[in-house]
């Protein structure tokens, strides 16, 4: 959504010239990730449902081992094109701690659509203990929480590799860290999460790393802004309405002022 919207908004704001210098200045980053085309960009962009469903599969089978998605409920998956029975079955595949019951005890029961996504660790300390002291971030709004949003997350997922030969001499990879071309500082605790053929897509799409990265970024972009499609759809109507209204108000103004000019 960024580039065209940015251009559009800059034009709209030409009057508010004060802002113009601010826009590029926000991009204080080590490396600017290359811009890619996403289905959800632009005035009429929507989430590619097939890609988002595949991305959910990647999240479920890969990311969910460490990363929580604490603001998302299973019921939300309906928006990705899963029907009620599929959502129920998906939720039931998880074990949820509920209670206390009449005896004052917590108990386990199968997940329901009204449950939040099950978290991989009971608390942050447990998450750190299992991950060399690093805390896997919550992914609910991660796409909104990073400069360059989806481009950055994609670049990060596909940006692993060996330390390049032209790296500065004082660059030293700390033990347990991994080189990533796009992570600030280039040292990231998360090991390369994706490898070719890691998941088996039901729709037969070849699951190579770039494909899985694209899919999971689409899914996470939806998770960060589930309201986006409704927002843009309403926005088109609102803006068109306001333009017509402004035109009418201008006509009224002209008519009222005719005897003054």
């Amino acid at each position: 959504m960024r580039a065209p919207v940015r251009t559009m908004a800059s034009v709209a704001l030409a009057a508010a010239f004060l802002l113009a210098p601010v826009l590029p200045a926000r991009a204080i980053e080590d490396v600017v990730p290359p811009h890619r085309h996403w289905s959800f960009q632009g005035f009429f962009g929507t989430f590619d449902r097939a890609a988002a469903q595949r991305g959910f599969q990647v999240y479920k089978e890969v990311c969910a081992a460490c990363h929580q998605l604490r603001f998302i409920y299973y019921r939300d998956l309906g928006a990705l094109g899963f029907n009620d029975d599929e959502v129920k079955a998906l939720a039931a595949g998880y074990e949820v701690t509920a209670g206390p019951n009449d005896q004052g005890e917590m108990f386990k029961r199968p997940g329901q659509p009204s449950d939040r996504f099950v978290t991989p660790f009971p608390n942050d300390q447990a998450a750190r203990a299992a991950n060399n002291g690093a805390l896997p971030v919550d992914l609910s709004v991660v796409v909104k929480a990073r400069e360059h949003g989806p481009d950055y997350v994609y670049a990060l997922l596909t940006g692993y590799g060996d330390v390049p030969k032209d790296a500065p001499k004082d660059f030293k990879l700390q033990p347990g860290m991994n080189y990533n071309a796009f992570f600030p500082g280039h040292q990231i605790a998360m090991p390369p999460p994706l490898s070719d053929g890691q998941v088996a897509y039901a729709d037969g799409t070849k699951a190579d790393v770039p494909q899985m990265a694209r899919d999971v970024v689409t899914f996470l972009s939806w998770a960060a802004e589930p309201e986006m499609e409704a927002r843009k759809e309403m926005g088109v109507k609102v803006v068109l309405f306001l333009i017509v209204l402004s035109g009418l108000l201008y006509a009224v103004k002209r008519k009222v002022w005719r005897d003054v000019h």
Partner: protein
Amino acid sequence: MTGAPAMLDNKLVKWVDQRLPIFTMMQHSAIDYPTPKNLSYWWNFGSLAGFMLVVMIVSGVFLAMHYTPHVDYAFASVERIMRDVNYGWLIRYIHMNGASMFFIAVYIHLFRGMYYGSYKAPRELLWWLGIVILLLMMATAFMGYVLPWGQMSFWGATVITNLFSAIPFVGNWIVTLLWGGFSVDNPTLNRFYSLHYLLPFVIVGVVGAHIWALHTTKSNNPLGIDIKGPQDTIPFHPYYTAKDMFGVGVFMVVYALFVFFAPNLLGDPANYIPANPLQTPAHIVPEWYFLPYYAILRATPDNFIGSWMGFTLVPAKLAGVILMFGSILLLFVLPWLDTSRVRSARFRPIYKWVFWLFVICCAALTWAGSQPPEGPALWVARLGTFYYFFHLIVLMPLIGWFERPLALPKSIAEPVLSGGKA
């Protein structure tokens, strides 16, 4: 245009009006109010600011019904508003971008006042009330930005509240009072929430006084000359109500483009990371409308004032704080710093250009404030800070003395009737 309002023909209206003359007042202040007939579209931004104040209060009241002011739940409650409250995303984006739109309107309103000399006699108090509104808006916006309890909320609050520690003797005491403890924490969030709800209504009150003063001195106008008689004015309604409504329409188009298509463009992505007192963001940057002041704050070198012979008279931090607050407080004396008797820059051949230097200076400071204080950005900040004060303290009095203003038109009606610009 005066006399008994037509609406008093209605018996009920008349009954009320005889006991509380609210309808007579409306007739007097919103309908008959004589307004210069030559106001340009730059005069729309006052009503636009008023419109934004209403939008902010209404959207804010609804957000407050769903928000939880607690460090453990604030971030999550905002996400709940975005996801599960009916049209919560719409209300929040209206409120969030509304702050920016409010400042855009107010800044243009302020620059308009500076260009046309609206602060000069007899409108000094009107101008003062405007600056009080600006200061209240800044406090309100700052505290509102803390409420979602993201990384920039927390660290912005930490940086700004810490500024008060630069005040000699009582600084640390004030900071503890602001925090309600010994760091930015739950008590800070709670009092900020309370004040964020309170201050907008204080603003409403001061806006009332601002309009009262306006209606006493009457509006300035692009020619900057006094109203000489009824031929110079038109009633506020329907002329300016119609013109203001058109302004609101256009303004809302821009506003809607932000809300629906770029709701996070003006925000910092880091505020979608929950506040973490143990992790300082790489760059702590305030919202765009605070950037010029932020640049001024960070422009002072360590050895700025009186750091000689091993004796520091004013530490750099205090100097920065003084300059930052001074940059706004100085506006209070602008009516007396400006020695020219001519109000409108249209008839001031030198000030006309110098004004735009001031605008460019503010834009440059805005840019510098968004950058880390180093390299060229730091020098832009220092140069901009210097020019900001040089402009107000030195140029304004000097130009007033030396400039030969152009001949002023005899009246507002004359150039309007002759159909040409003065």
